[in-house]
C-alpha cells in the first residue's frame, strides 16, 4: 500500500486507451466500473479531441457481481463489434475487473468475432500507464504480424535492400501517441527531416494509423524508435523476429538530431552528407537549419552560463533535456530524474555523466524537495513540477507528459529535429530573465521609476507571493474552467510554522541588506541564508550572516 496524492502516470489500461485512441479502426472493450469512464476526458479535454475514445466500458455494478458478469462482458463485446465494426479489437480489464477474474480476453477468444483480437493482460496492481501503452502496442503489432513472421533461420534483410529494389529507403516512426508530449508535431518535423535526406516514412504508429498500416511495418528498412516509453518493446521484437534494425537515438536537441541522422545513414547504408560529417570549419547541417547554435553563442546568452537547472520528466525527455541543457545551452544541471522506472538505467547513466545521482521516483513531494535543495534557478519538468516550481517561486518550462491542456498548443511546436531545437531554445530561455535585461535592471534598479517585481514576460514563472501550500486558481485538469470559485481556507501547517520562525530571525539590518539584492535573486538568497542559519543554529540573521551565507553558497 502506498500513499499517493498526485500521480505522474495513470493505470496501465489508460496506456492501452492511448494506443486505441491514437489509432483508427481499433476498438477497446474494457471490463470496468462506471467511474473508470473518467479516462475519456483525458482525450476529449486535454487533447481537445472531437471524437469519443473508441472504448466500450462494461460499467458493471455491485448488483451485477452476484449474477453473470461474464455474460455482460460478452454482450458488450458483441454490441461493440456490431456497432463500431472495428478492424481490430482490444479486450481487457481495469483494476477492479482484474479482481473478479472474468478473463474478458479469453471470453472474446471463444466468440468467433471475425476480427483480429488482442487479449490485453495488464497487471493493474504492479504496472502503470506507459508500461500499459508499450505492452498494448507490442501485443497489437504482434497479433497483426503473426501471419508474416519469417521462418526461423531466415536471413536478415539487407540494410540496402532499398537500393536493390530500386526505391528510396523507408523507415517507420514508432511510438508517437496521444497524451505524449508534442508527438503530433514531432512526427511532422521528423517526416520533413527524413524527406530532405531522401528517406521515406512507411508507417507512423500508433498515432494516426490503422490496423492495416501496422501490417505494413515489415516493409520498412528500419524502425525509428521515437519514444522508447511506448515503442521500446515493439522495436526490439521487430528486430528479433524480422531482423529490422532499430534507430534508437531520439532526435531531441542539436547533438541528438545530428547523431540520429548519422545513425540513420549508417543503418540504411546511405552516404553521409558532408555537413553531417562534423568537419572543421565547415558549417554543419545544424548550423544551417537551426537557430539554436547561433542563439546560444550570441552575447545575450552569456548570461545563461551556469544557470542551475533541475530536470524531472519521462526518461526520453529528461535525458534529452540534460544533454541540451549542459552541452547546448551551457546550463549547469543540478538535478536529473524521472518517473519512468522502466528506463531508470538510462536515466542513471545520463545523470552519472553529469556527476549526479538520478532521482527515480513517482512521489512528486520527493521531487519538490530535491528541487528546493538543489537551489535550482530553472526547472524543466512536467505539469507537476510546474506547480512545485510555482510554489518555490522558480521559473519552469514543461518538457514532458503528464500534460495539461496548455501543453497541446495550437501552433506548430515540435521538440524533435532542427525546428524542435528552436522551440526548445525559446521555451526554456523565455521563463528566465533575458541576459542584457538582467544587466540593465541591475543598473537601473535605483531609478525611482523602476518598479520592483516588474517583469511581465515571466508570466507564470514569476515568484509566488508566500510560496507554501496555498491554492492557486487552477481549474480542472482538463480545461481550467473557473472550478475554484470558493476559496479554500488556508490551513496552518507545520511548514508554515517553520517559515514563520525563520522569518522572525531576520534583524532590521539583515532585512535592509536583503532588500538591496536584486529582486530576481532575492528569494533564493533569502532561502539560502535561512538554510545556512538553520544549519549553523544562528539565533538571528543580520547583514553579516547574509554575507557569510553568500560566501558559503557561492560556487
Amino acid at each position: 500500500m502506498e500513499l499517493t496524492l498526485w500521480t505522474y502516470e495513470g493505470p496501465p489500461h489508460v496506456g492501452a486507451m492511448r494506443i486505441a485512441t491514437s489509432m483508427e479502426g481499433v476498438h477497446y472493450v474494457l471490463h470496468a466500473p462506471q467511474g473508470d469512464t473518467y479516462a475519456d476526458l483525458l482525450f476529449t479535454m486535454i487533447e481537445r479531441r472531437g471524437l469519443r475514445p473508441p472504448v466500450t466500458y462494461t460499467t458493471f455494478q455491485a448488483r451485477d457481481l452476484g449474477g453473470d458478469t461474464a455474460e455482460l462482458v460478452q454482450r458488450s463485446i458483441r454490441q461493440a463489434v456490431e456497432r463500431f465494426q472495428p478492424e481490430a479489437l482490444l479486450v481487457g480489464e481495469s483494476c477492479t475487473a482484474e479482481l473478479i477474474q472474468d478473463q474478458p480476453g479469453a471470453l472474446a477468444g471463444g466468440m468467433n468475432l471475425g476480427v483480429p483480437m488482442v487479449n490485453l493482460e495488464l497487471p493493474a496492481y504492479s504496472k502503470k500507464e506507459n508500461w500499459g501503452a508499450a505492452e498494448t502496442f507490442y501485443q497489437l503489432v504482434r497479433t497483426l504480424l503473426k501471419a508474416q513472421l519469417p521462418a526461423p533461420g531466415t536471413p536478415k534483410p539487407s540494410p540496402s535492400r532499398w537500393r536493390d529494389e530500386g526505391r528510396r529507403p523507408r523507415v517507420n516512426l514508432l511510438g508517437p501517441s496521444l497524451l505524449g508530449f508534442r508527438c503530433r508535431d514531432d512526427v511532422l518535423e521528423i517526416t520533413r527531416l527524413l524527406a530532405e535526406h531522401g528517406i521515406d516514412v512507411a508507417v507512423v504508429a500508433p498515432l494516426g494509423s490503422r490496423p492495416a498500416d501496422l501490417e505494413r511495418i515489415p516493409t520498412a528498412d528500419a524502425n525509428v524508435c521515437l519514444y522508447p516509453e511506448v515503442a521500446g518493446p515493439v522495436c526490439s521484437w521487430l528486430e528479433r523476429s524480422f531482423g529490422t534494425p532499430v534507430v534508437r537515438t531520439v532526435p531531441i536537441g542539436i547533438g541528438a538530431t545530428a547523431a540520429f541522422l548519422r545513425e540513420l545513414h549508417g543503418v540504411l547504408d546511405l552516404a553521409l552528407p558532408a555537413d553531417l560529417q562534423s568537419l572543421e570549419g565547415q558549417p554543419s547541417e545544424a548550423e544551417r537549419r537551426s537557430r539554436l547554435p547561433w542563439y546560444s553563442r550570441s552575447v545575450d546568452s552569456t548570461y545563461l552560463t551556469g544557470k542551475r537547472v533541475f530536470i524531472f520528466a519521462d526518461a526520453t525527455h529528461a535525458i534529452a533535456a540534460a544533454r541540451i541543457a549542459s552541452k547546448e545551452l551551457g546550463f549547469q544541471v543540478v538535478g536529473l530524474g524521472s518517473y519512468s522506472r522502466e528506463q531508470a538505467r538510462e536515466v542513471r547513466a545520463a545523470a552519472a555523466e553529469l556527476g549526479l545521482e538520478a532521482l527515480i521516483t513517482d512521489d512528486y513531494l520527493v521531487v519538490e524537495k530535491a528541487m528546493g535543495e538543489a537551489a535550482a534557478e530553472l526547472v524543466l519538468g512536467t505539469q507537476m513540477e510546474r506547480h512545485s516550481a510555482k510554489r518555490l517561486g522558480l521559473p519552469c518550462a514543461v518538457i514532458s507528459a503528464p500534460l495539461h491542456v496548455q501543453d497541446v498548443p495550437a501552433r506548430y511546436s515540435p521538440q524533435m529535429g532542427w525546428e524542435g531545437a528552436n522551440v526548445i531554445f525559446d521555451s526554456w530561455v523565455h521563463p528566465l530573465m533575458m541576459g542584457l535585461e538582467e544587466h540593465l535592471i541591475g543598473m537601473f534598479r535605483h531609478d525611482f521609476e523602476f518598479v520592483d517585481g516588474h517583469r511581465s514576460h515571466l508570466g507564470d514563472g514569476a515568484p509566488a507571493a508566500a510560496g507554501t501550500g496555498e491554492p492557486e486558481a487552477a481549474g480542472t485538469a482538463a480545461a481550467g474552467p473557473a472550478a475554484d470559485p470558493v476559496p479554500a481556507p488556508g490551513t496552518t501547517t507545520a511548514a508554515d510554522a517553520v517559515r514563520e520562525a525563520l522569518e522572525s530571525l531576520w534583524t532590521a539590518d539583515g532585512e535592509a541588506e536583503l532588500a538591496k539584492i536584486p529582486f530576481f535573486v532575492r528569494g533564493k538568497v533569502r532561502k539560502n541564508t535561512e538554510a545556512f542559519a538553520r544549519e549553523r543554529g544562528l539565533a538571528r540573521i543580520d547583514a553579516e550572516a547574509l554575507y557569510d551565507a553568500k560566501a558559503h553558497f557561492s560556487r
Partner: protein
Amino acid sequence: MGVSAPPIQPSPPDILKESGQREVFCGLTSIVWLHRRMPDAFFLVVGSRTCAHLIQSAAGVMIFAEPRFGTAILGERDLAGLADANEELDRLVKDLLERRPEIRTLFLVGSCPSEVIKLDLAKAAERLNTQLLGRVRVLNYSGSGIETTFTQGEDNALLAMLPLLPSSDEEQLLIVGTLADAVEDRFRLIFERLGITTVRSLPPRRSTDLPPVGKGTRVLLAQPFLSATARALQHRGATLLSAPYPFGVEGSRDWMAAAATAFGVPTERFNAVLDPLVERGRRALEPHRQVLAGKRLFLLPDSQMEIPLARFLSRECGMELVEVGTPYLDRQLMAADLALLPPATQLSEGQDVDLQLERVRAARPDLVLCGLGLANPLEAEGIATKWSIELVFSPIHGCDQAGELAELFARPLRRRALLQLS
C-alpha cells in the same frame, strides 16, 4: 399557513429505463467538493491507481500542494493477504496523521477494489479510532463505482457522519448538502430575517462541529442526491420538508417557503422578505432568459441535479425539454420538482450511452448538458454543450444566484452567436 407549497401532481408516466454503458463518474468524485467544505478533514481513498487518477483528473492537476485527499494504492502484496493490507493501512494512516496534525476527521473511502477484496474499512475505522484515542475521528464510507455514482459519494459521506450527531429535540432547521460558504451565509441571513434563528448545516464547515438531530429537526435538502442521508435523518426523528431544490428564483422561494411553513412564519413576513429577492432575481435572470427561451435542451444523466435543473430551465428560462436523464430516480426526493415539470416530459433513468447519443443526434437539441468526456465530441458534431461538473463546483443555489445559474447555460449559446470563424 398561507405560504403556498407547490401542489403535488401525479408524476409523469413515461420513463425510459436503460441499463447499458454508463458515462458517469463514481462517488469518489464528491471528495473534490467535500474536502473543501470541511478543511479539517482528510479523505483517504483505499483503492487503486485508477482511483487516484480519477480524482486527480476530476479535481484538476495539483490545485493544492498537499491536498486533503489521497489514495492508499493497493499493491500486489495487499491483495495477497488481507491481514497485511490492514497492517499496511494502519501504518499509512499513522504516517499521514503525523504529517498532517491539523486533521480532525479522517474518512476512509472505500473503492471498487477495496470492496471486491472485502477489505473491511468499518473495522479498520474502529481499530484506528481505538488506536488514536479520539485525537482524530476515523469514519468510513463507500465512494466506489460499483455502489455509487458521482454525487452519491456525498450521500454516503454524510450518512457515515450521522451516528456521531448528538441527539436533541431542539427546534432547528437543518440544511443538508454541501453549499458554497457564501451561499450558505446568504441563506442563513434570509432565514434569520424570517425569524428562523436556529439554522444548522450538514456537512458543517468544521468536521467536528456536528449539528444535533432529533424530533425538533426540520430537514431541508440543499442537494437532490442525498436519499440515504435523508432517510437516516428521518429515522433519528427529523422531519423531511418536501420542496423543490433551491435552483432558480421559483425553486429557491418555494424551498424557503417550505421552511417558513414548517416554522409558522406569517405570510406577510415571508413575502416582505422574499418579494424583493424574487424581484431582483427575476431581473438578473431576464437577459439570460432571452437567450434560452424556446431553445431545446437535452440533459444527460450525470450529477443527479438534472431534474431540478430541468424544472428551472423550462419554467423560468423558457427552455423546451427534449429528454431529462438521471442516473437513478428517487421519486420521493424529486417529488416537488417532478410535479413542476411540463406534462409528458421525457424522463430517462440509467443510461446506455451509445443509444442515448443516437437520440441526441436525432433530436438535434440546441443545448446538451453532459459530462466532460462527451462535451467536445458533441461540439465537434455541431451540438452546443454545457459541462455538468461545473454545476457541482459553482455557487448556484438561491434567488441571488439564479442569474448566474442561467448564465452558465446561456454562455455556450452566446458564444456560438459571437464566433464568426468562416
